[in-house]
């Protein structure tokens, strides 16, 4: 069975200057995070590369683990294969990945209203994770006693 999982956190940016909170729970059978890539997926259209469209920060293990800070750019043309930035973060089972994405685009047309040029877009954070040996992901479930009783009746 493959042990590497490419976990995707998708973020939708709908407003200029928006702060998008990241509050994501990784599957409980992930043992470590060994790499990441943060990138623009779709929405922005430009003929030239934009070195920075936003900033991203991520913390692991419910804010216990060191985070990474990175900037996200836009590539006008497909070039190299995106490479994963190396990480080596042991993951505690079922803990939160938290952080934020901040849109930092500048209006390229100062005389035009912001709302005219801004286009909603999507950013993805890929986390390369390794499964923990022998552990299976268990979905947490909480069956309300009333619901259980109703089902039994």
């Amino acid at each position, binding site marked *: 069975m*493959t042990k590497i999982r490419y976990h*995707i956190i998708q973020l939708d940016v709908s407003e200029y200057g928006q702060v998008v909170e990241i509050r994501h729970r990784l599957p409980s059978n992930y043992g470590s995070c060994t790499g990441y890539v943060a990138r623009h*997926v779709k929405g922005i259209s430009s003929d030239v590369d934009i070195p920075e469209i936003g900033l991203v920060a991520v913390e692991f293990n419910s804010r216990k683990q060191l985070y990474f800070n990175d900037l996200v750019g836009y590539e006008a043309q497909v070039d190299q*294969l995106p490479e994963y930035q190396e990480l080596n973060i042991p993951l505690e089972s079922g803990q939160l990945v938290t952080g934020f994405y901040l849109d930092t685009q500048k209006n390229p047309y100062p005389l035009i209203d912001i709302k005219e040029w801004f286009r909603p877009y999507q950013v*993805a954070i890929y986390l390369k994770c390794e499964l923990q040996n022998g552990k299976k992901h268990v979905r947490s479930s909480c069956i309300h006693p009333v619901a259980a009783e109703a089902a039994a009746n």
Partner: protein
Amino acid sequence: MKNHKFQQIRIRINAPGDSVRFAAETDKLYAKVRGVFASVPSDQVLVGATIGLKINGQDVFDDAHEVRMISCGNQVAPNNKFFRFEEHIEAGGSTVEGRYTDPRGTNPALYPYDVKLYLWLVNETHQPEKHGEKHSEKHP
């Protein structure tokens, strides 16, 4: 024994936004899949395209995995084009299946088109490699 093969899987996309399931088999003369590369006719249908992939029943990519993550431009040297798997992915006639989703390109003239998925099949013993490094092959 042959050591390398680049197997092509074609996926037909007929209309913008199409989400297409595909299934193929790896060549049974090769032991494992070393890497994968995706090629589409235009960057306009690459941005936002996603692919889910399963090989030999093992999850490789989720359905939301961007095709861009396994693709690159024409300027890249052939040896560096493939997304390399760091662990053993079984070939030997295994099933390759998944779902390809078109990003709903704005240029209707591009449709229909074929996505070409290339699998790098090998018979050598797997050794994890870093990007750009070469390692010597074991010959049978």
